[in-house]
């Protein structure tokens, strides 16, 4: 067995040799790699980097080797992460397959389901999206009404999902569907894997206030899904759904962590640029005070994520504290963009075209996009409900 020190040294050497220089730069949103059949690689290095990492299983460092994962311990995975951050390596692959479905299949899937899907997630061959919310079921997710009726060897699925992230670019979708409408709402839900090649599945992009379309509405019309694509037991999908949400919250709670902080302009740098500096300090003491207040909270939160990582036994599921991370991380990220725009002054008000730098325009869009952080993956209000109930034990 390698010691942590050896592992760190070996990892470092491997990364230095294998991570192309172009993949050690700030990653614009449009250069994020999410894989799938329709993946487009703006730069050839993206694909090279993905393939090299996937070959080692390091797109999914802690997943078992038998499915193509890295088989690392939690400690080794942390070392890999730290070394990648230190070198500024981009994440070779992202997506809901890695962050949500994979851990769920590892916990609840059949061996066949794992063997079918995990390797393709790890390699980036298949891109997944999430079919949870519906127009009438947002915070009250369990009230969902998309129907799946078991007919022999198939489910027949009809319904309408919303906020299916990048559904138009995805190959498969994991869905919550109602399989028994006659019982209490939590007791009639199942968790299905659906191939989006079926012509009955129609995603339609939604334009956001940021001008981007990262979400879709997705319509299901008489979609036939093999019964073997059911994860867990029939009508027991809610348990799986909640666990998957914990993974989602934990993922969102890591906002900023994975964003290669190395390449990000911190609010203080932006303020220095636009407000000016005196003796190396932001010239306006009030703006400086606001930024320090934000940065202190952000720093303390970053330490809290580290503390939680140290506390967590390897492989332990995220649990209700994930609600705290989701809540705090998203509220912080919104504050961060408010700070950035406050620092930029008039230069933070541009939408497109002349008069603004690329970063300035990007910040404006990202500022608007950040407003969704406290809505998607369970609103801040839902997270606070969860903390109150499940952590503090306050009564319903």
């Amino acid at each position, binding site marked *: 067995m390698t010691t942590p020190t050896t592992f760190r040294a070996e990892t470092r050497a491997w990364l230095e040799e294998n991570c192309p220089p172009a993949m050690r730069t700030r990653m614009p949103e449009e250069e994020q790699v999410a894989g799938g059949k329709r993946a487009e690689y703006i730069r050839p290095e993206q694909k090279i980097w993905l393939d090299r990492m996937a070959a080692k299983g390091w797109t999914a460092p802690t997943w078992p080797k038998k499915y193509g994962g890295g088989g690392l311990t939690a400690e080794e995975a942390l070392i890999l992460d730290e070394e990648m951050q230190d070198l500024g390596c981009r994440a070779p692959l992202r997506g809901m397959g890695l962050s949500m479905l994979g851990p769920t299949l590892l916990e609840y899937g059949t061996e066949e389901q794992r063997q079918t899907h995990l390797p393709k997630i790890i390699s980036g061959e298949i891109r997944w999206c999430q079919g949870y919310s519906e127009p009438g079921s947002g915070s009250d997710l369990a009230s969902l009404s998309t129907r799946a009726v078991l007919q022999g060897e198939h489910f027949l699925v009809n319904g309408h999902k919303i906020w299916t992230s990048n559904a138009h670019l995805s190959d498969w979708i994991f869905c919550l569907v109602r399989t028994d409408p006659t019982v209490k709402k939590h007791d009639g839900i199942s968790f299905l894997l659906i191939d989006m090649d079926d012509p009955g599945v129609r995603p339609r992009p939604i334009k956001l206030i940021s001008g981007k379309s990262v979400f879709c509405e997705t319509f299901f019309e008489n979609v036939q899904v093999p019964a073997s694509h059911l994860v867990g037991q029939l009508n027991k999908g809610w348990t799986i759904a909640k666990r998957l949400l914990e993974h989602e919250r934990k993922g969102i709670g890591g906002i900023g962590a994975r964003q290669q902080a190395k390449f990000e302009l911190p609010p203080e740098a932006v303020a220095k640029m636009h407000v000016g500096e005196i003796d190396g300090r932001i010239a306006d003491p009030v703006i400086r005070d606001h930024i320090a207040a934000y940065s202190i909270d952000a720093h303390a939160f970053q330490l809290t994520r580290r503390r939680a990582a140290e506390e967590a036994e390897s492989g332990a599921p995220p649990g209700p504290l994930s609600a705290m991370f989701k809540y705090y991380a998203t509220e912080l990220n919104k504050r961060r963009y408010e700070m950035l725009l406050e620092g930029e002054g008039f230069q933070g008000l541009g*939408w497109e*075209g002349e008069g603004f730098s690329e970063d300035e325009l990007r910040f404006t869009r990202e500022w608007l996009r950040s407003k969704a952080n*406290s809505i998607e993956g369970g609103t801040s209000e839902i997270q606070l409900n969860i903390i109150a109930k499940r952590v503090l034990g306050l009564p319903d």
Partner: protein
Amino acid sequence: MALILNEEARMVRDTALEFFRERSPIVALRKLRDDNDPDGFDRALWRQMAELGWTGFLVSEDHGGSAFGLTGLGQVMEAAGRTLAATPLLSTALIGASLLELAGTPDQKDEHLPPLVAGERIFALALEETARHAPLTTTTRADSAHRITGTKRFVLDGHIADYLIVAASDGLFLVDANARGVTRTRTIMVDSRNAAIVHFDNAQAEPLGSLSHLETVLDRARACLAAEMLGSSSEAFDRTVQYLKDRKQFGVQIGTFQALKHRAAQMFCEIEVTRSAVTAALSALDENANDAAALCSLAKAKANDTIFLCGNEGVQMHGGIGMTDEHEIGFFLKRARVAQATFGDSAFHRDRYAALMGY
């Protein structure tokens, strides 16, 4: 100082509310944006506003106005704020008219005020040079022959203006926007309203009085912009409260959830105190009161914080649907950011208020 509107002002308000609701709902702003409209505003609408007399509220009767005053114009702007109407009210009916009235020569008034009142001539104030509101510092200068050189940014309605009023280090100047040496670049703003960067390269100008008028007119602009922001805040809030009544989750209206109720009640309080500050500022300006400047900073600071609150809570309480471009609530959030920065953000006005109050 009057804190309630008189009969005339109430009539103006009611007329304006109906006007914007019917002729310039938010869909009009969306259309200007999606069509990449080169003007960025509706000239026909502007002429109708002129016909209603709003362009002449700050112009004396000698030049075709009614001298109705700031409180009246504030009502119009508050109504415009409710539908986020993109108009040259601020640049022209307020700033242009005020500077010409206060600083213009008789000839300048005769030449410019009648077409301004008629809605046929647009003005824009070329003031800012840095990324933040800094009215007292300018590096733009005029030579002895009144030729202007310098760069101004965030010039509201700059690219559609017929005349530019330039704040230079040695006074205010009036420049034909199409004169040689004037280069205008429209900037596309997040609120889909008009602004431009304007370069002056030895552009011929004529003097328009001293810089001493600038602060007076900026205070008028701050108070009226605060009125517009109050309208936008109120509308965003009203829509949000309605959504809390309409949207059901967990089998009940989401407005039954106490945490949302309390936040809505707090927003209500903030809007109410902002309304008092705005009304007081407008009234103090009309009466030339000693504390007018402090009240204008008070009004703008409160309006800034309240529109920030209402825009953000509006989107959050609308949930996912509030993040879509299709829904209108997001337009308030975008407008909020620009309005907050215009003519002084909250930190600027807190500092100015403290200075005016002697600390």
